[in-house]
């Protein structure tokens, strides 16, 4: 069993709220839920929609075939070709047929609640799940519950959905995962400038700032954000910044500074459709190469690409650990699809990585900010400790004083680059690639395409999916071996030129010829992928 409900209307009509509530109800009834959000860059009007896909077995992506529609702006006709036969369309037309009370249908928001009650009632799901979920989402819930009850009572049984007994489903977005992973890593300071689709983490952390004792601040621009963040990290705080492509472009000079001055920093980059302003509220995987190589000069970095909210928690905690242990910038590469979609999990886990600032306890009088060490990692101290601590954007000697001397320039470059070796070994234990399914044919992808690819595997016997989760340091051997052993290799990416394919070519020498690319701002759906993969086969 796998079903999808479309909830559509104008911006401002509360469709996100209604979809989230439906997701919560289904999730608490023991179903696996995925919610995809499709909206334009406007505040009121337009035509936005959410797709709520759910099933009694795990769901990792949305479908484009709808069994029911909550249609708030009478535009469901636009989606006609995506309705299954006999789909239930709930809108004003239906209301007048059914003689539903007019006052509730004219009331903004209560109409959503009425229709939601009707939908859930038709499935025979317990009313208390609906009411519990509403109370969780709303402070003022009396009116909403009244409208829902009304709708619930009007519904005649359509199809019985049993409540499944589960220990408890977790229901969250990629944004939630990154925020939670950061807090679990001991985050002290989060700086950002609002930019879709990265704003969610700023909002989520601001919501939790008081209880979790973290400093969340919105500054004048991304340049100030990252330079202040490097000051804060130098000053001893566990620090993260967040942005999307355009803001990340503004940050690149300071990413190079983090590399040179060896200041730990975690950077959350949630991609949207580019280039330039692009399409702000739509998704893409167009910044892989940019993130991997951003910044002038040569220096080591970490780039992780989570594929779902659980991985967002995992990879965020790894990014913090690696940034602080190795004194370098670590980038978490997400996108609109992962950041803003809801996923369900039977269980959530937080990796057993202990938050650590990696600061020496008692730096001695002979402390050097840039000591030349065998593994390239210079012990870190912070100002206020019993020594002088220096951070230098200019090339420097071991004490951190400026130098232009040839042999020191070379030594310092070598020292910084030496960190890459230890880093590569370190990430081995964290599954830099993940494999799904079995088969001689290989699908390669990264990031948020994970969901649609996993959901397509059941229709693609003989295929396995290799998900590349570390873009830097790059898991060269794992990718190389998987490609060598495969009969057929297909690259799947949400961009126009196959950026992971280019990175694989650079790192391994393998050119992947078969590519399935999508670059219309929309994420893949599983059925579409199955069709396109079968065409290649």
């Amino acid at each position, binding site marked *: 069993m796998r079903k999808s409900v479309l909830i559509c209307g104008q911006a401002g009509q509360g469709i996100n709220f209604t979809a989230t509530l439906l997701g919560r109800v289904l999730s608490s009834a023991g179903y696996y839920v995925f919610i995809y959000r499709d909206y334009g860059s406007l505040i009121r009007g337009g035509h936005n929609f959410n797709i709520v896909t759910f099933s009694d077995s795990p769901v990792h992506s949305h479908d484009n075939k709808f069994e029911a529609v909550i249609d708030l702006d009478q535009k469901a006709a636009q989606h006609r070709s995506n309705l299954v036969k006999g789909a239930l369309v709930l809108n004003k037309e239906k209301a007048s047929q059914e003689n539903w009370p007019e006052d509730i249908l004219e009331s903004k928001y209560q109409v959503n609640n009425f229709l939601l009650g009707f939908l859930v009632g038709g499935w025979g799901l317990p009313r208390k799940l609906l009411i519990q979920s509403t109370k969780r989402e709303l402070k003022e819930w009396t009116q909403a519950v009244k409208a829902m009850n009304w709708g619930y009572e009007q519904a005649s049984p359509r199809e019985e959905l049993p409540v499944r007994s589960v220990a408890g489903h977790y229901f969250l977005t990629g944004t939630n995962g990154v925020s*939670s992973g950061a807090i679990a890593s001991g985050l002290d300071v989060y700086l950002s400038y609002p930019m879709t689709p990265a704003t969610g983490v700023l909002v989520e952390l601001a919501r939790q700032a008081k209880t979790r004792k973290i400093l969340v601040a919105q500054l004048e621009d991304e340049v100030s954000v990252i330079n202040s963040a490097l000051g804060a990290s130098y000053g001893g705080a566990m620090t993260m910044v967040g942005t999307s492509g355009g803001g990340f472009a503004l940050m690149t000079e300071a990413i190079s500074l983090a590399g040179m001055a060896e200041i730990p920093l975690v950077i959350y980059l949630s991609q949207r459709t580019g280039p330039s302003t692009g399409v702000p509220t739509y998704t893409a995987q167009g910044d892989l190469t940019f993130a991997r190589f951003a910044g002038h000069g040569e220096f080591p970095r970490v780039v992780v690409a989570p594929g779902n909210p659980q991985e967002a928690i995992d990879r965020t905690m790894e990014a913090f650990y690696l940034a602080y242990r190795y004194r370098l910038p670590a980038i978490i590469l997400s996108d609109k699809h992962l950041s803003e979609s809801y996923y369900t999990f039977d269980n959530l886990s937080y990796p057993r990585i202990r938050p650590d600032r990696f600061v020496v306890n008692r730096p001695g009088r002979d402390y050097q900010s840039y000591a030349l060490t065998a593994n390239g990692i210079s012990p870190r101290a912070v*100002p206020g400790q019993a020594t002088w601590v220096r951070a230098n954007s200019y090339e420097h000697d071991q004490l951190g004083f400026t130098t232009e001397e040839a042999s020191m320039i070379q030594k310092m470059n070598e020292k910084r680059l030496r960190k890459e070796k230890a880093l590569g070994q370190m990430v081995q234990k964290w599954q830099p690639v993940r494999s799904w399914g079995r088969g001689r044919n290989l699908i390669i992808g990264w990031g948020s395409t994970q969901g649609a690819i996993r959901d397509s595997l059941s229709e693609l016997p003989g295929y396995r999916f290799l998900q590349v989760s570390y873009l830097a340091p790059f898991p060269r051997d794992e990718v190389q071996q998987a490609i060598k052993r495969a009969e057929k290799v297909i690259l799947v990416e949400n961009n126009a030129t196959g950026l992971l394919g280019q990175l694989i070519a650079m790192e391994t020498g393998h050119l992947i010829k078969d590519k399935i690319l999508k670059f219309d701002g929309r994420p893949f759906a599983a059925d579409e992928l199955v069709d396109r993969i079968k065409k290649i086969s």
Partner: protein
Amino acid sequence: MSSDFDTSQVNTWCPGCLNNVVLRSVKKTLTALAESGVNKRNLVAVADIGCAGKFYDYLNVNGFYALHGRALPTAFGIKMANPELKVLAFLGDGGAYAEGLNHLVHLARLNPDLTALVLNNRIFALTIGQVTPVTEKGYRGSTTPEGSVDSPYNPLSVALSAQASFIARVSPLDPASMEAVITKAINHKGFSLVEVIQPCITFRLSDLQRLKEKCYSVAGHQEGDYLKAREVIESWNYENGRIPLGIFYRVNRPTWEERHQVRNWFRLKRRIDKSALKKEWR
């Protein structure tokens, strides 16, 4: 005269550069601060790029040699991490008034407790002589061979409009007054902007005589009076006329760190309850 704050780095300013006078004054000021009980391990020098950036190498304190134009956000970030640190930023007119003007305006508005020394010689010196946004009209620099056709703006007036809580101008030609003002700036709780107006002896040697003649002290000026501050600040437009020196404006406002309840995060022992984090998503 040797100081605790000396380093062994070779001084690469031009022989006779007045930055040396400023450096000596800063060292004296810091020495006095340390003697008055300030923990010298809490002193941080943040440097921009250009001749002013070299203070990083010549001052033996904690230091951050930042990007061009970004000394101010870097200094601000250091205060976000640990409000106990005393942060002193060194910038030139390029970093403060051209590349980083944006940040000057916002720090003035937000009022973090730190001091910005802007060494203003009205020239890009280290890149060998180009006009800055405060160079007078008509100046012949390497990129304006026919003479600059653009007029300067008044950055102190901008800082005042942005609600800076401490605005002053000093000159290394009067080191005693300079030291007194820098000390007050460092002790001021909030954002203090001190413009050090000085000649570049390599590219603008004639300024040496001009500054000697044109600078005067605004002794007796009422520091808390906004309108008087505007009047004195705007009495010199960075081109002609007499150049006022002294503290033009000083008021007390809550600092950014106070308003945002910033703590020394490094000293905060966190107990992270992962099961509570997890519960958020049930």
